[in-house]
């Protein structure tokens, strides 16, 4: 038997419930949550989709660590037969294990972390040079699936609600290095505001916990460098 403590309710009114869940071989944390909902408490809310680590929707705090529940085996994280499951940190809770991802994606947009095309849909696509240094740098970050784990791991996000966070800034960095993105200055301006990349303290929890082994800290350092370079250039040309 596993002793499973689940955080319930909303940000304003949260409590914990205890469930005894049968232990199984090759059991994932998502299996545990699903078992609770199907066998004990159908009112338990949680979010998942693909179950294979592609969609990025099932991230939760497992014993205090942000993880994809679908790719986390209970045997790897259980402590003395006990699992604590809570919604992702640094986000408002809608109900139980379901967080409101709006702030996360609003910041994604605020960082201009969206494609600004160089060509229209009727034109031929703009070929990329796979082995150029810029492309190689962009490639380091493009496997992000916006699961929010780095955002939950980051203490700077926790202390500074305006901070755009590792995921949005990393995507901004991949676009800045993408030859097919037409708004370099717009991206640099968007990541230079009050909540921008300069708030990062390089503590590296984003890189530490990213399930895809990406390194947003490195991307954010790149943004800091490029924003400073652009500012110095502006000063020189002024």
């Amino acid at each position, binding site marked *: 038997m596993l002793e499973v403590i689940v955080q319930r309710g909303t940000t304003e009114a949260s409590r914990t419930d205890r469930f005894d869940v049968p232990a199984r071989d090759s059991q994932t944390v998502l299996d545990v949550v699903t078992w609770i909902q199907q066998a004990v408490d159908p009112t338990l809310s949680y979010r998942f989709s693909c179950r294979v680590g592609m969609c990025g929707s099932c991230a939760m705090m497992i014993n205090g*660590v942000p993880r994809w529940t679908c790719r986390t085996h209970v045997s790897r994280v259980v402590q003395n037969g006990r699992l604590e499951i809570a919604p992702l940190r640094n986000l408002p809770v809608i109900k139980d294990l379901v967080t409101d991802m709006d702030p996360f994606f609003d910041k994604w947009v605020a960082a201009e972390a969206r494609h600004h095309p160089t060509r229209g849909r009727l034109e031929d696509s703009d070929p990329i040079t796979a082995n150029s240094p810029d492309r190689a740098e962009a490639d380091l970050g493009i496997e992000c699936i916006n699961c929010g784990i780095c955002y939950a*791991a980051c203490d700077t996000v926790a202390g500074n609600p305006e901070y755009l966070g590792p995921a949005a800034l990393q995507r901004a960095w991949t676009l800045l290095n993408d030859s097919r993105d037409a708004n370099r200055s717009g991206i640099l301006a968007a990541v230079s505001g009050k909540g921008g990349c300069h708030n990062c303290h390089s*503590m590296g*929890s984003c890189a530490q916990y990213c399930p895809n082994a990406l390194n947003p800290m490195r991307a954010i350092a790149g943004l800091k460098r490029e924003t400073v370079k652009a500012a110095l250039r502006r000063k020189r040309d002024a």
Partner: protein
Amino acid sequence: MKQPPRSHPLWLAFVLHRLSGLTLALFLPAHFWLLSQAITAPARLDGFLTLAEHPLVKVAEFGLVFLLAVHMFGGLRLMALEFLPWSNRQKTLAAGAVGVALFLSGTFFLRAI
């Protein structure tokens, strides 16, 4: 909510940088005020300097020198991380900053006692 266990090396380097900076900033006003007495009230400054012969004060001074050195070398690591080409050796560099700081403050301590 339970906080993530963040005791990975770079997080510890961050905490060390923040706490050393905070301590140094809080120490500065006293440091400045005391030195400003050098001409107007040299006896008071000398009084404090004699106090520095106390072993506990020497340990505290060692601590301050360590914090100053570790804040500087840790800060240089951060600026290298931000402005030089990326290096994957951040944990080694952070440990190196602590090592050099310990060496310098240790040298200071051995000269002080």
